[in-house]
């Protein structure tokens, strides 16, 4: 479908924009748009629960956190262009670009052996998931398989996720608490 391709293209444009702009508030806003478009793509791929989570958490909370960080630090990214260091900066950029292109090339080479997109015979689609699709209603009694797996089959995993959030919260509190000397 053409709309899927256009959405993916728009994602790439948003990602480049978020990285390119020197004003960090613009970058943050473009990242918010990127997350929302990502949620749309996931809704198109039938991952409805994931799309809603991304729209709320990725586009919402991440943007709020980044704006909070910007309000407590500097808004503009400084251009590294002191004349004496200019040469080393270009070398640094080129070297980064080289690493990125090399990594990308290796990954593209890896996709050649992957099953085609939306292939019904792909190992991921025929190996474990049919068991969940067939038995979920019998065993759990919920029509939404994602919810059933998240809260029942993999309930301990979700508990672990809560522990991760708790640990992150403790970390943030300890890092940002007011110090008394």
């Amino acid at each position: 479908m053409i709309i899927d391709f256009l959405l993916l293209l728009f994602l790439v444009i948003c990602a480049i924009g978020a990285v390119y702009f020197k004003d960090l508030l613009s970058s943050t806003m473009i990242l918010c748009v990127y997350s929302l478009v990502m949620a749309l793509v996931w809704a198109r791929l039938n991952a409805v629960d994931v799309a809603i989570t991304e729209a709320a958490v990725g586009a919402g909370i991440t943007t709020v956190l980044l704006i909070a960080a910007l309000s407590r630090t500097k808004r503009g990214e400084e251009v590294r262009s002191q004349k004496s260091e200019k040469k080393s900066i270009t070398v640094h950029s080129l070297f980064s670009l080289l690493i990125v292109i090399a990594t990308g090339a290796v990954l593209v080479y890896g996709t050649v052996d992957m099953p085609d997109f939306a292939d019904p015979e792909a190992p991921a689609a025929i190996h474990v998931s049919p068991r969940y699709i067939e038995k979920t209603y019998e065993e759990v009694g919920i029509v939404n398989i994602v919810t059933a797996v998240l809260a029942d089959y993999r309930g301990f995993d979700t508990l672990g996720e809560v522990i991760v959030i708790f640990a992150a919260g403790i970390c943030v509190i300890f890092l940002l608490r007011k110090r008394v000397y």
Partner: protein
Amino acid sequence: MIELIAGKYNYWIYITLMMIGFYAMIEKGNLIKKIIGLNIFQTAIFLFYISISKVEGGTAPILILGKEAVVYDNPLPHVLILTAIVVGVSVTAVAIALVIRIYESFGTVEEEEILNIMKNSSLKPEENIKT
């Protein structure tokens, strides 16, 4: 060749996204820019997982009762990524808290300036804290 492109171009777009995030992480000196790159990198991986779950002609993995022979998408990657999104936001939150702490200590979030300050001062970083 056409077949290869038609079947795989999705994956290549995800790789492009991931590499944009990677580039921001290793090339940009601004720490907040690095976090933005980290976010792009993460979501590209999530997108890759979600696209694995797509099955030709499948509907969302919500059971339609009383109807036989419905093709559903694979629900398991969805569950993994639901967990991963929330963990990703936790990582972002801790990273941002660290950046704010660095700004309080050094007065800048540019990597090179921080390195210069650390090089030029004989004090240890902890003793630079502005109260």
